[in-house]
């Protein structure tokens, strides 16, 4: 039974950590993308959106090279005594953050753009410093964007397969997440187990999307 729940638990852990990391990193990035006027913002914007169109295996392939013992990042982590990231849970987090980045950044960026200048100008004339304007006005007003971003980032990470297979492999308790477990069950012709996991995923994904729509309706 523990075996059975292990991939589920691992998947939820991965998705939660990934979402939190993405909210922390993605928020300033979305803010900058929404408000910067420099020409190279579109360059960075495109880079952020790349995982939307790139096959996950391509992403995983390059990550493997980059993070592996011969890659520049791999050498760095190794020299810092951290070992290399591929085939570890930490490696999965790094891969998932990159893979789900656009799903979190884009909705938050859209919400920030929809705000316009006005509320921030109003706040400035009410003595709010730039940081206060961001936390007291921009973030609460962009709340629907944060909800959407968090939900999509979480759900997308739960459904991740290609990148994980490339950089994480199939180590139970470390990198064997739900989608990989389902794949394994199907390979081993264990249809019952595959059904349970796949059906569970289906219900979960539907519930998440449905809840998100309801929440957004409420706040409109």
């Amino acid at each position: 039974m523990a075996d059975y729940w292990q991939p589920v638990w691992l998947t939820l852990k991965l998705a939660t950590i990934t979402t939190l990391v993405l909210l922390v990193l993605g928020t300033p990035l979305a803010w900058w993308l929404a408000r910067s006027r420099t020409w190279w913002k579109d360059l960075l914007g495109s880079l952020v959106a790349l995982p939307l169109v790139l096959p996950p295996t391509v992403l995983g392939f390059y990550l493997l090279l980059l993070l592996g013992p011969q890659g520049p990042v791999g050498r760095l982590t190794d020299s810092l005594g951290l070992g290399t990231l591929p085939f570890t849970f930490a490696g999965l987090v790094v891969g998932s953050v990159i893979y789900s980045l656009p799903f979190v950044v884009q909705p938050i960026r859209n919400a920030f753009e929809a705000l316009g200048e006005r509320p921030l100008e109003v706040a400035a004339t009410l003595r709010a410093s730039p940081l206060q304007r961001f936390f007291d006005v921009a973030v609460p007003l962009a709340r629907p964007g944060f909800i959407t971003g968090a939900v999509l980032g979480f759900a997308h990470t739960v459904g991740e397969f290609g990148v994980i297979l490339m950089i994480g492999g199939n180590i139970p308790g470390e990198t064997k997440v739900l989608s990989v477990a389902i794949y394994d069950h199907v390979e081993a012709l264990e249809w019952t187990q595959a059904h349970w996991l796949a059906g569970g995923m289906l219900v979960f994904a539907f519930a998440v999307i449905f809840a998100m729509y309801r929440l957004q309706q409420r706040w409109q």
Partner: protein
Amino acid sequence: MNGLEIRLQQRLGDFQLDVAFAVPGRGLCALFGPSGSGKTSVLRAVAGLLRVPAGVVKIDGEIWQADGRFVAAHRRALGYVFQEASLFTHLSVEGNLLYGWRRVPPAQRRLGFDTVVELLGIGPLLPRATLSLSGGERQRVAIGRALLTSPRLLLMDEPLSALDHAARRGILPYLESLHRELSIPSLYVSHDANEVAHLADHIVLMDQGRVLASGGAAVLLTRLDLPLAQFDDATAIIEGTVALHEHDYQLTWVGVGQERIAVAGTERPVGSRVRVQMHARDVSLAMGARRDTSILNLLPARVCGVREVGRAQLLVRLQLEDGQTLLSRITRRSGATLGVHEGLSVYVQIKSVALIGA
């Protein structure tokens, strides 16, 4: 130096902003001009929301911008009321009012929370969500929110223009009482001559990014060479002192120089300074002091300017004995019959006079 000193030069889109003026550090100064004349840009530059390189903005000698110094908007002690109320939708009315209030150190608060709430009549709205308010209520909350930062200067950008006629009439008295009871110097952008006549002590007339004229409201309103006098509802402002209440007839007499003007009865105490407004089209001229007419207000005056408007009408500027000026709009035919010319002594008959802020 006391007052507000502004010098701004910048290319903005397809026109050149080039203004320099100084206005007194008290009362309400209207920035008046057609849409696109640069009024809002001036206001935004004063607030620090628009950065005009090499601009100068000083208030009572304190530098907000000059010589490479630029004080950020949130460090300027100002209140800003935008064209649309722009309330924070994630906060209640009370939350909006408190947003600026709690950022001002208690020692620097010059206006009490309850005072402002009462003055604007927004007490019952405090717990409401901003989206449930009417346009006029929203704008009153926005004004209150700005006032609660105890600003040294209140900037208002056409605060009534987004409102319908009824809401506008509903909010004007609040602006007037604000003006009367709090002595916060204000800069008020408007393209509505009536609003300006109601509220302004000082007027800066703008057109195409430049200042056409700047001066006391009463004088500028009646200058024949300026656009204010040429509007259909051109109006003049006369200052006076409440002299007498004639309760039987529901009339109040306002002393102007040696003369008296009757207005609809008011509660203002005898001796208080008031402003009355009279439209040019409600002022007619007579050669003698005829008492066999239904018109109560009959004052001796001297013609100090005549200008044709359109083909059929004349705009006549008149000076009362105490030096205050008003306008009369008459037909050219009447002008010819009476022989109206500069220097002529006449009697003005005023059909309708409104007390401002009654």
